[in-house]
């Protein structure tokens, strides 16, 4: 009886590990799509209303979903440091302080470069750069979707199979 309970717990544990991996893949897809949408909103507000960057950041912190909203909140919280630290560094620190974005290194590099496009004199230059960043994140989102479709079943099966396999060995 004890062995059976142990086997069930083992299978449940490894299955949960597999399902967590699947959930992470799904979450990444959603975050990357939300980041692309946020960059689009940033571009639209900047081009049409010529809002100052701090106001744009504040607006996005309330208009985006978590954890992207956390990113903008982290930028907003650090903005009083402007003058001691450059906006580029403030943004970079905020990206580092938001690990829940679950970004791959390439995605993180791209996100860190966004402030290079912001705060210039030329609005058209900013529009082009933000549009480019938005497209990059749409591409990351598309790739994450493909990876999720390809890996979800595999991960779930591996989780269950690993549990069964271990249970058979140990019993």
């Amino acid at each position, binding site marked *: 009886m004890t062995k059976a309970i142990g086997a069930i717990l083992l299978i449940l544990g490894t299955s949960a590990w597999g399902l967590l991996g699947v959930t992470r893949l799904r979450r990444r897809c959603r975050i990357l799509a939300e980041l692309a949408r946020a960059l689009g909103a940033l571009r639209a507000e900047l081009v049409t209303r010529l*809002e*100052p960057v*701090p106001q744009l950041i504040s607006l996005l912190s309330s208009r985006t979903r978590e954890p992207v909203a956390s990113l903008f909140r982290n930028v907003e919280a650090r903005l009083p440091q*402007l*003058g001691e630290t*450059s*906006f580029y560094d403030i943004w970079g620190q905020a990206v580092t302080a938001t690990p829940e974005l679950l970004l791959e290194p390439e995605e993180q590099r791209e996100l860190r470069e966004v402030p290079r496009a912001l*705060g210039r*004199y*030329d609005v058209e230059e900013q529009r082009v750069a933000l549009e480019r960043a938005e497209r990059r994140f749409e591409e990351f989102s598309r790739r994450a979707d493909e990876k999720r479709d390809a890996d979800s079943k595999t991960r779930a099966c591996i989780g269950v199979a690993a549990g069964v396999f271990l249970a058979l060995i140990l019993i």
Partner: protein
Amino acid sequence: MNTSDKNYTAALRLLPPEMRERAALLPPERQSAAEELRLRVGHSPTVLLPGGEAPLGDVPVAPRDLDAVVEIATGASAHTSRDTVRAGYINAPGGYRIGLCGAAITDGGEISGFRALSSLAIRIPRARRGVADFLAVALGGKIPSTLLISPPGAGKTTLLRELVRLCSDGSEKLAVPPSRVGLADERGELAAASGGVPQMDVGRRTDVLSSCPKSQAVLMLLRAMNPQTVALDEITAPEDAEAIVRAANCGVRLFATAHAASLDDLTSKPMYRKLLDAGIFRAAVTIVNVAGRREYEVTQLP
């Protein structure tokens, strides 16, 4: 620490941290006399004092330092200053005007920004309470339409701001009655309004119209705010002069400034001569620098 020191210290917040630390070492008496901070790539930053420029340390200014000043001054939002950048400057909170110089980007014949900055001049605004009292004393409290004359950087804006405050608040001691003042503050230097609130004291009865071409602002103030006095900084274009004539015809008192070394110098310029011939201004104040000190000469005009 007096007001001037506070102004200097506040101006230093626009500088990158290392440069700010070196500039803060300037002795307090020189801080209170500082008129501008000047940053030129490849040279030490300097402070403009009544006697000339003095270096602030010996570390040359780098291009990134100038970009940092613009980023700090605009809150990382240089695009919000496009209109003033076209005129070669940006306004920073607190009434600081930053003059820009470098390789300009033109779009359709208009400057849209700067590809690379080569130098900046941060003008430190001064609120010198009482600096306009001499005019009330000289004219027995009845201050008429007055033109303030001096070369650039001699203190016209400071005097005009205080004259506006004095006439807006009034002064029993000087027998100056209070009046409604419409202030056309095109470059935001006089009132330094931020979020609609003047950062400099321009008086309780002053309505400020900023970031609007002076010629239009004068007429808008006349139409909308029913001023008894209209004040504007630097008559530079024929449209400004036309607006002044129209305002004078409406019976308001006018305070304005003009670039000239003296009254004779001013009358040699056709645009100003027309204004003076029309008898719009009844007094002129010429600011002269005597051994690093400002002196004011009041002339009653015919």
